[in-house]
């Protein structure tokens, strides 16, 4: 499951953002300063779960600027939220397609939330993949819904 999610992350970041992630091994550290933006999509079906990502604001800005072809300074917080929500949506959709999941699985509307550095928390390594993206940290997670 995580391997497919990883493949989807590469596909989405490379195609839509012209960013090339590298997977981080457990214990590898990339300095990351908050605030952080977390976005996710709930997937409802025979097993309900949520797929999401967490990035520092600085990376969210780079992603949004690449996505829209604008300057980082011109982007508002709602635009960053929109981009991250769309990213989570694309990852979840592509993931379901790759998994050949049945039509019983439905994507819900993506959501986003700002987190201070101390709220970021730590996830079980079994449920997350960490990437270095343009010298910044990106964390992808899967949680039971």
């Amino acid at each position, binding site marked *: 499951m995580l391997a497919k999610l990883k493949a989807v992350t590469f596909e989405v970041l490379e195609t839509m953002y012209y960013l090339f992630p590298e997977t981080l091994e457990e214990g590898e550290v990339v300095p990351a300063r908050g605030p952080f933006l977390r976005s996710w999509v709930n997937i409802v079906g025979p097993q309900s779960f949520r797929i999401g990502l967490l990035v520092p604001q600085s990376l969210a800005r780079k992603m949004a600027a690449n996505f829209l072809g604008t300057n980082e300074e011109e982007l508002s917080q709602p635009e960053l939220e929109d981009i991250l929500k769309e990213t989570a949506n694309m990852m979840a*959709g592509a993931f379901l397609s790759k998994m050949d999941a049945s039509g019983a699985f439905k994507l819900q509307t993506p959501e986003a939330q700002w987190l201070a550095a101390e709220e970021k928390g730590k996830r079980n390594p079994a449920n997350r993949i960490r990437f270095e993206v343009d010298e910044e940290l990106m964390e992808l997670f899967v949680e039971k819904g």
Partner: protein
Amino acid sequence: MAYNVLIVDDSATMRALIRKVLVISGFDIGEYFEGANGREALGVLEHNWVDIILSDVHMPEMDGAALVRSLKEHEMWRHIPVVLITTESRPEVINPFLNLGVHDYIQKPFRPETIKKKLTGILGEAIAPDASETESCDF
């Protein structure tokens, strides 16, 4: 030849992105219109000629399926090609739309060349003269 394009998506960011990708792809855009849902799209069509519609699936007020149904019931709009822009390619999601008369779909993430190839192909088919009519012309 420039084509009038209508993009329907509840995310303004996504509409901006699709427009940007169309420009990057070199697709020849005439007039550009947009709507945040099916209802707004129908409002645009009331006053403007559109050659192709790119639509999201899930939207508030009037979603992609309801939009396509309305188009198919309208004498003037039923032949406008509709292409879905979707995060999913599962048959259970796509087939109902194809059965409704949607021309094709583009799965996100997409590349500019993919979108151009698809749209050019569809519009090429839409404007190609009927072969039987061409043969019957006697000059």
